[in-house]
């Protein structure tokens, strides 16, 4: 049986802004449907830039990048983005924030309602649907942001350090919820983080980047079994992978210096 065609495929991807220095150099990568890929590396290695390229928010300087066989922004595959900040519209309540992507696509009301109920259910915030963003905690806002990304039933979700501003326990809880949703919905994820523990817990693949210019330094496959729970973090195998990724991160930093 031939391997399934990749959902995301990059070849010799490079990026610079204007006449500035090279941000990303010659990246080659791919992701299969259902992959949870984490990008980790020192500050300034271009992780967030790579997400913006995949989202089609910023053009490549050279190379090729395809989402389901088409260039970013032109692909038929739904792509959702979860930002560092929750990026909610403060003048809309939770329900209308979550529905917004469908409203902007002119989806009919019944479809909007159905998707909203499903998405809020997935992030366990149904009871907050009439609340305004300012009435929510940081973690709740992020869950609304996640629900908004899920309403389009995307095949690819790009997450740019979404839980970086949360306290450790909220972050762990959201990691567990994110994986539970991923297990049900099976989208492909590209997840940017600074936390090795988070990267190992979430992903089946970790791409470690080095900086100046941004490039792939190493890839780690995480074979920890699913479903992963709070227990997973106590296992020796988990600790071993965390140690290995940490070591590779150090060598990535040394390679840049």
């Amino acid at each position: 049986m031939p391997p399934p065609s990749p959902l995301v495929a990059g070849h010799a991807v490079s990026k610079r802004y204007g006449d500035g220095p090279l941000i990303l150099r010659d990246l080659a990568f791919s992701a299969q449907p259902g992959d949870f890929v984490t990008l980790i590396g020192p500050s300034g290695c271009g992780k967030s830039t790579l997400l913006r390229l995949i989202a089609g928010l910023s053009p490549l300087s050279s190379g090729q990048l395809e989402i389901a066989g088409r260039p970013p922004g032109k692909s038929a595959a739904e792509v959702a983005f979860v930002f560092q900040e929750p990026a909610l519209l403060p003048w809309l309540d939770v329900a209308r924030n979550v529905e917004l992507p469908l409203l902007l696509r002119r989806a009919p009301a019944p479809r909007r309602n159905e998707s909203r109920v499903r998405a809020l259910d997935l992030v366990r915030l149904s009871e907050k649907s009439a609340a305004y963003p300012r009435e929510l905690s940081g973690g709740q806002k992020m869950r609304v942001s996640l629900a908004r990304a899920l309403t389009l039933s995307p095949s690819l979700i790009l997450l740019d350090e979404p839980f970086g501003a949360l306290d450790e326990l909220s972050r762990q809880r959201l990691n567990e919820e994110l994986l539970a949703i991923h297990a049900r919905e099976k989208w492909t994820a590209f997840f940017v983080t600074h936390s090795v523990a988070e990267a190992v817990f979430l992903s089946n693949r970790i791409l470690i980047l080095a900086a100046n210019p941004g490039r792939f330094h190493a890839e780690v496959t995480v074979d920890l079994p699913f479903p992963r729970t709070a227990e997973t973090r106590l296992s020796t195998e988990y600790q071993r992978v965390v140690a290995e990724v940490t070591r590779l991160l150090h060598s990535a930093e040394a390679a840049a210096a």
Partner: protein
Amino acid sequence: MRKQLLSFLAPLLAGILLLGLWSCVHRRLSPEKQYLVPSPGDVVAAFIENRSTLALGALITAAGAAAGLTAAVVLGYVLALGLAFSKITRAALYPYLMVLQMTPIIVFAPILVLVIDASLLRVAIITFLICFFPLVVNTTQGLLSVDSQLLDFFRLSRASRRDEFLRLRMPAAQPYFFTGLRIAATLAPIGAIVGDYTAGNAQGGVGGLGFQIVLTSSRFQMPQLYATAITGCALGFVFVAVVLALQWLALHRWHDSYDRAR
């Protein structure tokens, strides 16, 4: 409870002190100059004596101010949308907007007197010219100051330019619009009084407050002049109160400035 009492009593006490200072100044002036600062009692008497003239004048001035302010809001918002929509319109029109702002509005008065018959319309136009600038500048600023992640989100959702304005830029600009409106609402009664003063007349009766200022000062009716000034001040408070109420209606559900928990 004590705090509340204090915050109620403090301005009251300051007011009584200022009134005392006022009558002190009145009594200390030499008899031939005393008319310049009439006693508070004389001003109150002038208020009561001229109450219907003052009330009618206030209404006429309020009508001119409201008409001018409304026109400034509508046209100012439309222009702000145009300015926010494209860099080219911004580059083309902004310098002339500055020119309008820098021009002393008084110079328009004699022209308006020659061109327009209706006193109220002249007053409204002068008010409009004074209120227009802060509305345009603040609203444009608001339409352009949208969080870049929200703009990215709209782009990713393949939102039309129309949706970007209707559902993102215009709601996000509301706090800025109200800042402009608050400034304009303070200026509107002043603008209308200046309009009255320079380009008003007593068409159909007593004339607006500005026109009454012209009359009373030329007749050296100082208590009445003071009463007219205080009426104009009260009118300003009414305008600002209306705007604050509208702002509350628009923003209190979601904007951080109305969050009681903060």
